[in-house]
């Protein structure tokens, strides 16, 4: 009797362990697949507009991003959602000016194709790496809310930390099959010798589909990055 019980519980627990292991393996496979498929060009894409999330940094970062946006085809990258840190009032203002100037050119309302949102920042300039763990968690929860709402097909970002929670969630959505988004990261021109923390994370974890650097010596150091000249 006792022996039989023991046998059953061993079988039950080994079944649980097997089930658990299979589950883990499947999830790992899916994560690896998502990493592998990211950075591969999309196989087929009808020439339809793609919903685009633009993560604005601050100051110089925003200037570089708007520089890139000004040459991207607005009818392809539409609708556009802009996100900036809650502590950064200037960036969204600049994005609004940019969208308004487009609207003036085309004679359509900017409101229809563009949305503007703010997000908690995961790390302020100069904040220590230790305390940024906690603020990053907070930022992730907020980012999740926003990402569920937006579910972009394309994410354009260029640092600093604001984009990390958003990109991490975008990657999670890829793994879970909720939304396949292509993430493009342009490293700031201010980074000459080393990638920024954001750039390094997106590069090493293979979250960014394509990562652009603006100095040739940086590309030599990170061979999967692209160097096609300066943006500024």
């Amino acid at each position: 009797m006792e022996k039989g019980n023991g046998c059953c519980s061993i079988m039950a627990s080994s079944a649980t362990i097997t089930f658990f292991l299979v589950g883990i393996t499947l999830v790992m496979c899916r994560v690896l697949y998502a990493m592998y498929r990211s950075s591969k060009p999309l196989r087929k894409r009808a020439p339809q507009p793609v919903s685009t999330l633009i993560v604005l940094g601050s100051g110089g970062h925003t200037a570089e991003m708007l520089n890139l946006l000004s040459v991207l085809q607005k009818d392809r990258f539409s609708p556009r959602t802009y996100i900036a840190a809650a502590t950064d009032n200037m960036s969204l203002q600049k994005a609004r000016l940019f969208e308004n100037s487009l609207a003036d050119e085309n004679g359509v309302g900017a409101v229809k194709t563009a949305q503007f949102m703010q997000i908690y920042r995961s790390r302020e300039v100069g904040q220590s790496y230790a305390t940024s763990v906690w603020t990053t968690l907070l930022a992730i929860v907020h980012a999740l809310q926003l990402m569920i709402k937006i579910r972009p097909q394309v994410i354009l970002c260029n640092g600093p930390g604001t984009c990390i929670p958003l990109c991490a969630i975008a990657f999670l959505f890829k793994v879970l099959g909720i939304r396949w988004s292509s993430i493009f990261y342009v490293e700031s021109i201010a980074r000459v010798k080393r990638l920024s923390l954001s750039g390094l994370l997106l590069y090493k974890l293979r979250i960014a589909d394509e990562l652009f650097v603006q100095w040739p010596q940086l590309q030599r150091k990170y061979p999967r990055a692209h160097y096609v000249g300066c943006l500024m």
Partner: protein
Amino acid sequence: MGDTENGEKARKTVFVTVGTTLFDALVRAVDSLEVKQELLKRGYTNLVIQMGRGSYTPTKSGGEDGSLAVDFFTFSSSIADYLRSASLVISHAGSGSIFETLRLGKPLIVVVNEDLMDNHQIELAEELAERKHLYCARPQTLHQTIESMDLESLLPYPPGDAMPVAKLINQFLGFPDD
């Protein structure tokens, strides 16, 4: 603004900008006697300082006695106008200020803030200095840089182009080339 036509000495303005940063060391350096004297020697007549959030207030001067006229303000929405009317720009190492100045073709001295924790900004200033697009200094070496600089030897900065990046993004997403 501008020069008066009746033979008065032409106005040559040095514009100092710290952007949105706190950089008292730079404001203090440009307000120092040695820097002001070097600027005078170089033929500059006016010094305009955008001091941002700093607490050090420079001394204003009308420049009547042949000294440098000094003026300052905290922030302005028309920094571009100040840059445009300047003969020399002394700036913090932020990439926004650097490229805005270079695009206007103004001679530029970038002063690196050594108090910043994660000071990658030195990289950009030094790289561009190596390529002879600007001069790079520290607050305590600024007067030497002004003394020894040769503005004729600076090379114009070729403006960047975002098109190649845009093209790669389009290709990745499967959009046809135009």
